[in-house]
């Protein structure tokens, strides 16, 4: 009598999305008695570029290192291309990682650094040379392959570190804040480079950063983490347009979203220190936060908007392309991004308006979007 296939096999056969990419199921990490990652669930599709973003200490690196196999998994399950990898060694997971400090082997040349892992995977000499040459060409470091790492600049080291990952042709790329050791200008250049690289090397990628601009520009989907929990997962547009929590609202976007205490009464949203806005929704009587992005505060009289407040500018920062104006709403500091030269100096009165659609409402208690 034929044995029925195990349940897991049936499940995987039934849903093709589980046989590729990376899946996290209830992943928990504890150091001793302190839990730092509290049950993370996440599905990363094949060839998707996912960015983990969050403040320092939120567990981004820990999560990434668990996927890499460098940290034990306290609880839950991690699957790569359908295979449960909880108990596998890093080398058997077929992942490649780029570290914040590059982690190039200082006693080997650039070529040897890039070829090193292939040697241990039994790749033929000629094939190694071909792959390293190709990676060097893609990254424009062909002239550096004979050098030692200490003879390279920071940006060049970064390229070599990426080259070392590319030659592997792994199932998953893992990046842990690869750009944070570079100066601002180089960082922008390398960001563009990574973006360009993505189009040439299509491999599932998980990229950790605490820089929300990096996250927005690189990601297919952003995973926002806070205190070891996922706050929201979504495309850059989704997390920007409809932040799920107050945390996401204030984390994504620069300057951050203004969050003004408010209350819903008789079908209107009464913003403390500002005008009442029409609003339909079941949040009567609760303490709320009205979130308005600086760029959605516009000069009063703009069509489609309702007047919100006559603000007294406390600080004016002309950026050229636009002007940042700081003010206070009933004691809460706020910022508006206005057209250039619309406000000249602090102390001026600025009548501001907002479109009702651009107001995000959060429950003050739970921080959840309503």
């Amino acid at each position, binding site marked *: 009598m034929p044995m029925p296939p195990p349940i897991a096999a049936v499940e995987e056969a039934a849903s093709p999305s589980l046989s590729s990419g990376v899946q996290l199921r209830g992943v928990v990490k504890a150091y001793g008695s302190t839990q730092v990652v509290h049950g993370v669930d996440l599905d990363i599709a094949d060839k998707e570029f996912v960015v983990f973003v969050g403040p320092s200490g939120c567990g981004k690196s820990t999560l990434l*290192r668990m996927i*890499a*196999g*460098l940290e034990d998994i306290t609880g839950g399950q991690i699957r790569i291309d359908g295979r449960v990898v909880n108990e596998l*060694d*890093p*080398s058997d997971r077929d*992942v*490649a*990682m780029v*570290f*914040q*400090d590059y*982690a190039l*082997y*200082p*006693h080997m040349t650039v070529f040897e650094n890039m070829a*090193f*892992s292939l040697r*241990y*995977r039994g790749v033929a000499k000629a094939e190694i040379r071909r792959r390293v040459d190709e990676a060097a060409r893609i990254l424009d470091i062909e002239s550096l392959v004979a050098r030692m790492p200490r003879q390279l600049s920071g940006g060049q080291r970064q390229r070599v570190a990426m080259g*070392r990952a590319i030659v592997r042709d792994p199932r998953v790329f893992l990046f842990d804040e690869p750009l944070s050791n570079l100066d601002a200008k180089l960082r922008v250049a390398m960001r563009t480079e990574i973006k360009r690289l993505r189009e040439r090397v299509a491999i599932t990628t998980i990229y950790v950063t605490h820089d929300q601009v990096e996250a927005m520009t690189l990601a297919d989907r952003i995973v926002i983490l806070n205190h070891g929990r996922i706050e929201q997962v979504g495309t850059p547009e989704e997390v920007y347009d409809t932040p799920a929590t107050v945390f996401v609202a204030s984390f994504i976007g620069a300057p951050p979203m203004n969050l003004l205490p408010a209350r819903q009464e008789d079908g209107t949203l009464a913003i403390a220190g500002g005008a009442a806005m029409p609003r339909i929704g079941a949040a009567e009587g609760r303490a709320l936060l009205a979130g308005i992005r600086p760029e959605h505060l516009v000069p009063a009289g703009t069509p489609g908007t309702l007047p919100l407040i006559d603000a007294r500018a406390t600080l004016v920062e002309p950026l050229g392309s636009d002007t940042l104006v700081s003010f206070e709403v009933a004691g809460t500091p706020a910022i508006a991004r206005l057209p250039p030269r619309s406000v000249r100096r602090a102390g001026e009165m600025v009548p501001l308006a907002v479109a009702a659609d651009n107001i995000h409402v959060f429950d003050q208690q739970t921080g959840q979007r309503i």
Partner: protein
Amino acid sequence: MVVICVLMLIPFYWVLKTSLTGENIYAYPPAIIPVDPHLFNYVDVWYMIPFPRYLLNSVIVTLMAVCGNLLFNTAAGYALTRDFPAKRWVVLLLLSCMLIPFQATIIPAYLITSWLGVLNTHLGIALPMLSTIICIFIFKASFEAVPRSLIDAARIDGLSEWRVMVRIMLPLSKPAIATNVILNSIWSWNAFMWPLIITRSPEMQTLPLGLARFLSVMENTTGALYAFVVLVLVPGLAIFLMAQKEFIQGLTSGATKG
């Protein structure tokens, strides 16, 4: 600085000079430039006593001690960079063992050696010198200075723990290796008391023992004695000079790392 160097070199020069001439060291006024230098004293030493035998013994014992130290100290040092239960106690135990003078351990060491049946053998002479606690800590400090991410990268690249040590840790710990080689070769080269206790037959004696024997047998062959001394010193100096750059780095990096 130069003056101090010269002052420190004078005794060496004197030994060398005397070994080449055989003049009485108490001669007054002393001759600064050797008069009529010759190598007869060296020839004498070579043939009058079983110098080649002593030399061979010393070389064998020193090689064993150095290899033993490299093997055991790297392994122990690597283990101490990892977390394991009761690690604090192991470190404490090692450190407190450093406080016990060697002389106090001679009797148990002798008994253990005899129980192992290696009295009066090269292995027996080398046995207590196969690992040195201070050198374990030199390796520990050196391994700890290797960035964590390098080890992570190597593991992702597919290296086993053992290979990480051989391919990553050791190449990056050259100063520590040099320090180990120099210190241990000098210590075992110069060791006197333990070989004296453990060896019975003259064929197993090492150079320092040979020197002592030589002293008691021929008292007034000053030149030959000094020639002997030079022959004992030269290998140690040679090793030191070859590795001194790495050696000094090793000592200081060990020092700052605690």
